[in-house]
Each structure stands twice: as C-alpha cells, then as structure tokens.
C-alpha cells in the first residue's frame, strides 16, 4: 500500500517536474551557456564560445568597478534585510493581539507587498526628488534642512534612499510570515513561562523565537535571495547612479542587457549572482542547523 502510494505521488508530480524542467532548468542551462558566449543583440548570427572572456571583462571593467558593485550589493542586501526583519517582527508582535479594526489595519499594512517594485520605485523617486520632492518639502518646512537635499543625486544619500524604499516595501512580507508563525505558538507554553516568572522579554527570547525559528530561518534565507535579485526599485529610482553609487549586481546585469545589448556579460553577472547565493544558502543553512543541535 505504502509503495503504491509512493509511485502514485511520483506520477502526479511528473507534470510539475516537466513544467519546472521546461521553464526553470532549461532557461538556467541556456542562460549559463550564454555567459560563455560572445552574445550581443548587435550580431546574433555570430555567437561563438569565448571561455571566461565575459567574466574577465566584468571583473576588470574600468567603467563599472566590480568591487564597488559587489560592495553596494552587500550593503543593499544586509541593511535592507536587517531593517525589514526587525521592523516586520515588531509589526507582527503588535498585531498579534486582537484590537478594534485589526482587519482593516493589517490589510493596509500588507498593501505595499501587493505593489510592483517598479511602481514603488517611481513613487519613492518623487518622494526623494531633490527639487520638488515630498521629503525635502517636509524637511525644509520643519527647518531640519536649509536647502534641498539631493537624495538621489548625491552619492552620500542615494544608497540610503533606495534602501529606505526597499525596507518600506519588504516589511509586510516578514510581518505576514512571522504573524502566522506567532499564532502557532501554543498559549500553554506562554502560560507556563508566565507561571515560572518569565517577563515578556524573556518569554520572547526563550519561548517565542526558538519556537518560530524555522520560519525565521527560511524567511531570512528567501528574502536574502529576493533582495539580491530585486533591482526594480533601484532601476526606477537611480538606474544604478549617481556615478555607480547604487549599482548592484542584478542592476548591472539588467544594464548589460538593456543598455549594452550584451547578453553574454549580462549572463556572466547572472552566474556570479547564482554562485554567491548558492554559497550563501549552504553556509547559512549549515550555521543555523548547527545552532539547533546545541540548543
């Protein structure tokens, strides 16, 4: 009986596997191959294999320093993720207790997650506009700034500005996922904690967080990947500028394809991203599962 159901499950999975192979694995293989070809829109009839030339070209590009793009990517991912997670967690904790209008409130809070990244970028680009923007208007009226700040035109502020937009966008995801996990924490455990004299902070760190740890680990891992592959906001707000200061790997991949018409170098960037994320996932999972054993 068990064997039969195993075979049955395999059978019903075939369509999904075929679809995955067709729309995920095949494009990945094809895209990886392009990374080793001279492949430009300019001359698509001639696409020879050129070994690692595309990688050499992107690593030694004098116009778009790879080191800077990598550093930008790191800042973009780490800062966005940290604040999205912390603020999303706080929001989930606040919304855990029932209060009047919670339904409306939570749907309002989750709203950003339903928007397209590009549209969000356009809105924030106007908020942070250095001449007519809302942010400048508020700062000037409050007397916090004496002249308009070039949020997106000054390299000192550009990265912070795009990250703020990204944080705003990403909080709801953590809030939704963590709220769902929080609701699964058995109330008996909390009661027991209370009886043993644990305060709210102690209960949070000793009961809640360990209990929802699997959700935390998987959402952090997922979000790292998504943020790294999410240049939409940057694309709409700065295009990677000014002077490369907000250029991340995924942004440069898109620029290579849309602006340079160079699919080969674009794919090379894609491969670099894939390798980095794969390495990250392995290390991250190993670290987090080790901890679990010691707990």
């Amino acid at each position, binding site marked *: 009986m068990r064997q039969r159901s195993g075979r049955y499950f395999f059978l019903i999975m075939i369509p999904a596997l075929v679809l995955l192979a067709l729309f995920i694995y095949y494009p990945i293989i094809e895209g990886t191959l392009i990374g080793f070809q001279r492949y*430009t*829109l*300019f*001359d*698509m*009839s001639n696409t020879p294999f050129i070994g690692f030339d595309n990688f050499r070209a992107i690593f030694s590009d*004098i*116009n*778009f320093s790879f080191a800077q793009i990598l550093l930008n990517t790191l800042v973009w991912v780490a800062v966005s993720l940290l604040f999205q997670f912390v603020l999303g967690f706080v929001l989930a904790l606040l919304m855990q207790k029932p209060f009047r209008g919670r339904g409306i409130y939570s749907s309002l809070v989750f709203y950003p997650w339903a928007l397209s990244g590009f549209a969000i970028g356009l809105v924030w680009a106007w908020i942070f*506009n*250095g*001449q*007519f923007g809302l942010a400048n208007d508020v700062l000037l009226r409050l007397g916090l700034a004496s*002249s*308009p700040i*070039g949020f*997106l*035109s*000054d*390299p000192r502020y*550009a990265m912070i500005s795009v990250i703020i937009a990204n944080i705003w966008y990403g909080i709801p995801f953590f809030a939704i996922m963590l709220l769902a996990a929080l609701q699964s924490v058995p109330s008996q455990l909390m009661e027991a904690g209370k009886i043993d004299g644990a305060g709210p902070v102690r209960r949070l760190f000793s009961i809640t967080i360990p209990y929802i740890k699997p959700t935390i680990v998987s959402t952090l891992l997922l979000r790292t990947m998504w943020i790294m592959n999410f240049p939409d906001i940057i694309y709409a707000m*700065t*295009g*990677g*500028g*000014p*002077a*490369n200061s907000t250029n991340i790997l995924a942004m440069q991949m898109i*620029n290579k*394809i*849309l*602006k*340079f*018409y*160079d699919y080969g170098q674009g794919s090379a960037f894609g491969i670099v991203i894939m390798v980095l994320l794969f390495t990250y996932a392995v290390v991250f999972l190993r670290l987090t599962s080790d901890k679990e054993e010691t707990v």
Partner: protein
Amino acid sequence: MSKRIIVMLIALTLLFSVGVSANTITLNVLEVMTSPERTALLWDLIAKYEELNPHININLISPPYEQSDQKATLMLNTNQALDVVEIRDYTVKQFVNNKKLTDLTPYFNEWAGADTLSPVAMASATIVDETPYLVPQAIFIKALYVRTDILAEHGITKMPETMEELVEISAAITDPAKNQFGFAWRGRGATMKFSDLFAAVYVKDLADAEYIYSEDEKFFLDPGFKEGMELYVKLYKEGTPPDGVNWGFNEQINGFVSGTTPFLIQDPDAIPLIDSLLGPDKYEVIPLPVGPHGFTVIDYGFTGMGIPSYSNHKEEAWDFIQWISSVEQNGYFNEHWGPLPVHSTTFELNEHFQGRHYEAYSYEMANPDVFLLKTYPLASEKWPGWGMIHETDMQSLLLNRMDLDTMLQKWDKYWTK
C-alpha cells in the same frame, strides 16, 4: 446549460475563424515607441485603413516602451509572424546586420511620396548602406524651449543666441534660496545628446565631419571640445539645480513647467505635453543657440516602418506603410503625437505645423549651413554601451569624482579602434 453555451461558443469561434481566414489577410504590426496616447492614435489610423481595405485585418502589437526594442529584436530573430515592424535609429543597423529587413528600393522607386520626403527624412530612410530599409514616420530634432514669462520677471527679454549667452542668462537668474535656476539638466538617459551639443559647437573641424564622433574621427582631445565641456560644467555649477544629476525626461519637463528651470532643450514631442500641463501661451520654442564658429550641431533621431525579410505579405505590408506614410496620414499622426512629420509639404499643408512652437524646427531644417545635421555612429559596436558610460562619467565629473582631462582621455580611448 453551460455546456451548451460552451459548445455554441466553440462552434461560433470555428465558424468565425474559417470565415476570416478565407477572405482576409492579417497583418501583424509591431510598434516600439509605445505610449497609451500613441497606441490609441495608431488604432485610430488602423481603423481608417481597415475601412478602406476590408480584406485586411491589422493586428497591432504594443509592447511596453522599456522593453519594446528587445521584443522587436527577439521577434525578428526568431522569425515570429510579423509583417510591419517599427524601426528606430537605434535598432536599424542591428536589424540589417541580422538580415531581418527587406530592402525597400523597388517600392521606393514606385512611390510618389518619396519625392516629398524632407532631406532629413530621406537621410533617415537610407541611413544604413544608403539603402532604404524603412519609411520614416517621425523625426526628432532639438530646439530650445523658453519660459518667457519667468525670464520677463527677471527683466530678461533678449533670447540667447549663443551657447555662452544661454549659460550667462541661466547663471544670472539662478538663486537657490528662491528655488530659481536656469537650465533643465539631463542627468539620466541619453545624456550625451545634451553635453555633446555644447562641446561640439566649439570644435571647428566638426563642420566637415560625418559623425559627432566615431571610431574613425573623434574630437575629445580637441581644445575646443574641452572648452565646450567647461562651459557645460559651468552651466551645471552655476545655473542648474544640483539634483539635475539624477534628472530624466520627466524631471526636466517638471522643472520647466514649474518654472524652476525656464530653459529646456527638447524634441518636438514635448510640445503636446507642455501644452497640456502649462498651456501654449507661457513659453516659446526658439532655434538652438550657436557656438563660436557660427554653427550649431543637431543630431537627428527618427522612427520608421519596415518589412521583415521573412514576411509572407510584403505587398500588403507595403500598401499599409505607404498609406500611413502619406502626407495626410503622417501629418495627422505627428500632429497628435508631437514629433515632426516626414514630408516637407506637410509644413505647408497642415496648419498645426505652422503654429509658432514649430517655427523654430522648420527654421532649423531650412538652414542646414547653421544647423548642421549630424548623427552618431549608431552602426558601431561601441555605441550601445556608450550611453551608460557617458552618463556615469558625467555624474562622476559633476560630483567632483573625476576631472575633465581624465574623462576626455578616457572617452578618447574608448572610441579608439
């Protein structure tokens, strides 16, 4: 009940499709400069054409503007059903390289409309290998837009005739405390089309050059080019909001309409937009200022229609193209879209293009000795990446992260074979 309806629907669809395929030919038309208004305009023209030609059914494909050139390239390279394709200055060479366009010479020879094409339209049609691969639909050249009302408030009534005067007036009226600046800077997207205007007019030898620069002939190390660039940097430092570094088309228009930056250099398709935001009475369009050698450089852009080399309906496709490219339809199309029409006669026949905002453009085209029509080496493999490099370097220059000499050396090296 619902089953019956479905069966009936299927039967109807089958019947309909049989009926359609027996009598009519479907032409697939791909546009690339997509905008909601323009797409509606095209449907409007298509409806007219279909009424005149009942056996033709036109299927207009309108990909979003940001990815439309890629879509066109992909469709052509994979031989997808397409009979008319919109081609731009940026894509024409690439399509020809990939052998995806029909040589329209035989059609051009028979076409009466070819005789009234303006010189710049003719140059656009034959830009690759001096062979007509497309019939131009719209021409883009630049002119100077001026908020005369704002300038009058500052007591300025004389319009700038030289680049230097433009910079001086911009600097004179600039007062950051009052949020008043002079010039609507372009810091993102096609930035070279603005900086090169200033640099090129200072290069005397450029008068005889084919391109503004190319791998064969370039002027980055010419003292004149540097002088022009210095003037352009001065314009940024003294007459432009610092935020201009990040300004694209929308911000430029916003700066102009709000009056923050009363000078704007733009193509004629800005006219309908500014008219709707500001009204037609608060601004003037004047010819581009000239440089110290008495000329100014106008780079022209265009969009047109061509026939994919593998189309099965070339005759029908040509019939549609020659109809939509007629003086009347092309005039109507550009009147409502904004760019310049392709026939010289349209400027005499269509009242709209006699309006005062178009005078500057007619004047520029009528005086090719002063307004030198130059293009970029769009056929060069170095061209596609140049926009991003230029934009990033200009930002570095204006943010004091790179000096002018280093930048010009770098550009010279980039454009060396």
